[in-house]
């Protein structure tokens, strides 16, 4: 029995979709359009590296967080950038319809504070499209770093 490579699989999938009267064509684009929220750049994060950064200083620099997870003392800033466009078309029996949809990329800046309102850790990350917001947050909240912590992401370890 022969096995087919990933390229062949994609080609076969594409052909089967076309034959089924359905076309899905993702077109990657540079991330230069904000779909929702206010982006936080890497440069804006430089002040977070100090272990003395307080909750108030974070709010002064970045504004009110989009989400406050009260009991875990986590601030969430989220925004969406356009990563591409999905062209879709469905046809059959003499009629057809087509359209364009924007493909979002879900960015998050997560900051956790201690009981003294000082930063414990932070991370600028991207949420996978397949994972819900709450699942992602819970996974991050429960995450105990196994690998040695980087000074940037874990300012308390700088000591």
């Amino acid at each position: 029995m022969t096995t087919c490579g990933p390229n062949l699989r994609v080609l076969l999938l594409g052909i089967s979709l076309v034959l089924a009267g359905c076309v899905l064509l993702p077109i990657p684009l540079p991330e230069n359009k904000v779909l929702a929220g206010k982006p936080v750049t890497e440069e804006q994060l430089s002040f977070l590296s100090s272990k003395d950064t307080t909750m108030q200083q974070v709010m002064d620099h970045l504004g009110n967080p989009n989400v406050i997870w009260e009991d875990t003392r986590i601030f969430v800033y989220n925004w969406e950038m356009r990563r591409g466009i999905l062209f879709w078309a469905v046809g059959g029996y003499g009629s057809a319809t087509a359209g364009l949809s924007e493909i979002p990329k879900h960015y998050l800046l997560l900051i956790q504070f201690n009981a003294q309102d000082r930063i414990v850790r932070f991370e600028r990350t991207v949420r996978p499209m397949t994972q819900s917001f709450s699942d992602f947050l819970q996974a991050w909240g429960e995450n105990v770093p196994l690998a040695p912590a980087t000074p940037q992401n874990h300012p308390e370890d700088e000591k």
Partner: protein
Amino acid sequence: MSVSLRIVPYDIMKNLASRCLPQRILVRTAGLVFFCLMMLCSCVPSAVITAKDKAALASGEKALVLLRIQCSVDNQPCEPFIKPSFTVEPIFVFGLGTFETVGEPKYAIHGFLSQEARQAGWIYFLLPPGIYYLAVLGPDSAVISKTDSTNDFRDAPRWRLDVLENTKLIYVGTLHFTGKTEGKLLFGGKVIYPVNTDEIPLQDEREPASHLLAEHFPNAGEVKTILLQRWRPGDSIIIRTPKRSKNE
């Protein structure tokens, strides 16, 4: 090429029609069933307190959150929860944002304590302790088509609702909505759309709320009043980890 036409004699047709009588009755019955199904489909589900709910309420696992909706359309008072039928559709639906949705409101089923309570605009939700975000769509004659719409709930007026632990009965306030009519629907109903959604007054009617709850839950204890807090775009969404119930 010739086209042949087959002419059926009159008596044969008459005979056939008489034989088809049971089929006509069948068609009428099917039509009636179809009409009844359409009547049912036009309804918005509303909750009824079950024995399980009563047990959850008694154990403090859930709280009954009471809210009153009042509405005026074209400056005239309007009943917000007329029983829906084939030609009368609901004009209010509700969304609740939870920890699981990170505050994003999703369609939520509301309940009525009685027919009288329904006519007076009192509704309830049974909720475990936590922070919720209530979104209200209405008064809107097209509201039934918006229950699955994330965008409509996202743009709807929203309030924060706190359900405290060890509290069984909570009254959260009375909201006054206004609407306007413009034209008529296919079956004569009016096209209603909401107006002044930025300024929705919140009234404290704790006395009548306490009376209503005492009537239905005489042994549930004191009614706590925790008024809704308006949430506006740009405000932080606050979430709290829900406590797992004993059954989970």
